């Protein structure tokens, strides 16, 4: 599903440049649940941004489901993001003046789906994350766990090939974290490819494969025995 070869990325910080990714080689098969770990500054967020087409690599190749991702203009990048990727953020990033339902429907809005159909689809995803009763509520009327579940529903709404989660449990307490992870595991069980960036070991243990990043290179990439989140709740 994802193929990355010899990826380099550096940032210009004034006069000196910061070499963040130093040759990453990395493949993800369809249906995998991968966690990317590393201390802050290891380049894991940068890697996720490149995977999410929010940022572009300096060199190296990135192929998503057979499509080379290279030199995209903004318009095409936006379309690819909309069609292929679903984002889950640490700080949820729900639009504050839109109801939960409208938030979930937003990716479909940018696909040009008709209003009625859009809301139907959004509703079905809200049901999936167990928040159908909260559809009309604004984000600030929801708890942190609920917000993240709305965000997950939103990421799923456009039926993307890959879910990218940047510290999805970073702003949640342990119990809610596990609930959210349970949801993510459930989605993965249905065959969806999911990448999670995290620095929490217990969260990483709940994925099927852990990729360790340090100073811009992968130091370890191993499959693990998945710990079911539900058993920890």
């Amino acid at each position, binding site marked *: 599903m994802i193929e990355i070869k010899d990826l380099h990325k550096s940032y210009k910080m004034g006069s000196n440049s910061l070499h963040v990714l130093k040759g990453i080689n990395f493949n993800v098969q369809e249906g995998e649940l991968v966690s990317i770990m590393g201390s802050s500054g290891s380049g894991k967020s940068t890697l996720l*941004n490149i995977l*999410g087409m*929010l*940022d572009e690599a300096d060199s190296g190749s990135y192929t998503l489901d057979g499509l080379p991702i290279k030199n995209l203009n*903004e*318009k095409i990048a*936006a*379309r690819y*993001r*909309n*069609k292929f990727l679903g*984002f889950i*953020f*640490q*700080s949820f*990033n*729900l*639009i*504050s*003046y*839109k109801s939960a339902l409208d938030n979930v429907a*937003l*990716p479909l*809005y*940018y*696909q040009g789906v008709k*209003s009625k159909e859009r809301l139907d689809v959004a509703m079905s995803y809200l049901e999936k994350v167990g928040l159908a009763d909260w559809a009309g509520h604004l984000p600030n009327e929801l708890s942190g766990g609920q917000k993240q579940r709305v965000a997950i529903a*939103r990421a799923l709404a*456009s039926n993307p090939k890959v879910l990218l989660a940047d510290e999805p449990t970073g702003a949640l307490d342990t119990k809610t974290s596990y609930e959210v992870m349970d949801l993510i595991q459930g989605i993965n069980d249905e065959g969806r490819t999911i990448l999670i960036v995290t620095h929490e070991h217990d969260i990483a243990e709940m994925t099927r494969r852990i990729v360790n990043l340090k100073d811009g290179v992968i130091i370890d990439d191993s499959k693990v025995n998945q710990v079911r989140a539900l058993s920890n709740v």
Partner: protein
Amino acid sequence: MFSKDNWSEIIEALTSNWFRTVLTAFGVLWGIFILVILLAAGKGLENGVKQGFGGMATNSMFMWAQTPSKPYKGLPKGRRYNFKTGDVEAIKQNVPNLRFVSPRNQLGGFGGANNVVRGLKTGAFNVYGDYPEVIQQEPMDITSGRFINYSDIEDNRKVAIIGEGVIKDMYDPGEDIIGSYIKINGVNFMVIGSYKKKGNNGNPEENQKQIFVPFTAFSQAFNMADNVGWMAITAEDGSSITSLKTQVFDVIKSRHSLHPEDDRAIGNFDLYEEFSKINGLFVALKAVAYFVGILVLLSGIIGISNIMLIVVKERTNEIGVRRALGATPWNIRGQILMESIFLTIISGMAGIVLATGVIALVNMQLEGVDTSTMMFANPSVDLGVVFVALSILIISGLLAGLIPAQNAIKIQPVDALRTE
């Protein structure tokens, strides 16, 4: 771009901060309000002044014979001559695009000796010998009876149309005037109608103290032979009397052996020229109204632009999320532009409505009042002005949104999401 979804997006975004939206909108509302009110006030002044012309055919001039200042064809300067009735036909035939050529004779006048007698009453009035067309050049309301017609002219009927002022002086209140006789310089004329003049040019009171009789009867009764005192000439709409009058003068000059370059031999008053000057004033007034109005509007527009900049800044995160979810740069730019245009148009419309409300109020107040002496009447804006204002609004909304929209698409999703 104009789908229902888009509108609900825009309205959602604008209503998320009501108070600020209203405050911002007020700037534009105020600008367009001032613009419309200024234009309406200018129009009111224009209406008032033009009302002063009393609906007179403004494309007219009056001309009369003066003494020649140059000798010509053996005739000396300083001699006296008169227009003749034949001149009228000659002008009509030789000069195109003239609507009316009315010869006029006049008797008596303000401050003159008493020239009209009826029973025991006497009075001094202006008496005019006229053709029926005069009523179109110098409009008056016929309050009873009728005006002169061509039968009167052909039959030399001794009939008269008298003003309201004459009636007041010469008749007892309630007396029937039609069919009564008045004696003008010793000659009896039958009264067949009365008039009331509009407008306030000249002396409004004196204007009502005039007597009109048929030109031919006047000439016969008062021994004018074929002399013509002066002429009122009106050009067709679409050609100005100012450009035609030299041709008229040329006809007169050749018929009366006047030196072709003797401009002093014929006196004239060009109403159109005077009118054009006043018109120029109103054009200037309108320009000032637009200038001031648009400047005030501009400050409102800058307010909107400012707020949109803040909105973009505030929604950096939201815009980043939208980009991550698949919004193209045009989606974002379009939304910011539409928000700005929408806000401008809505507040502008409110301003127009408010201004027309105020104008309607003023008109209501003016309704009962006689505006003829106020130089101000019926302030109004026509639909054209509203359309101009609307297009100004759309363009300015677009301009107001342009910089903020450009700022918005400069936001990279990564940066936006990193602001936490």
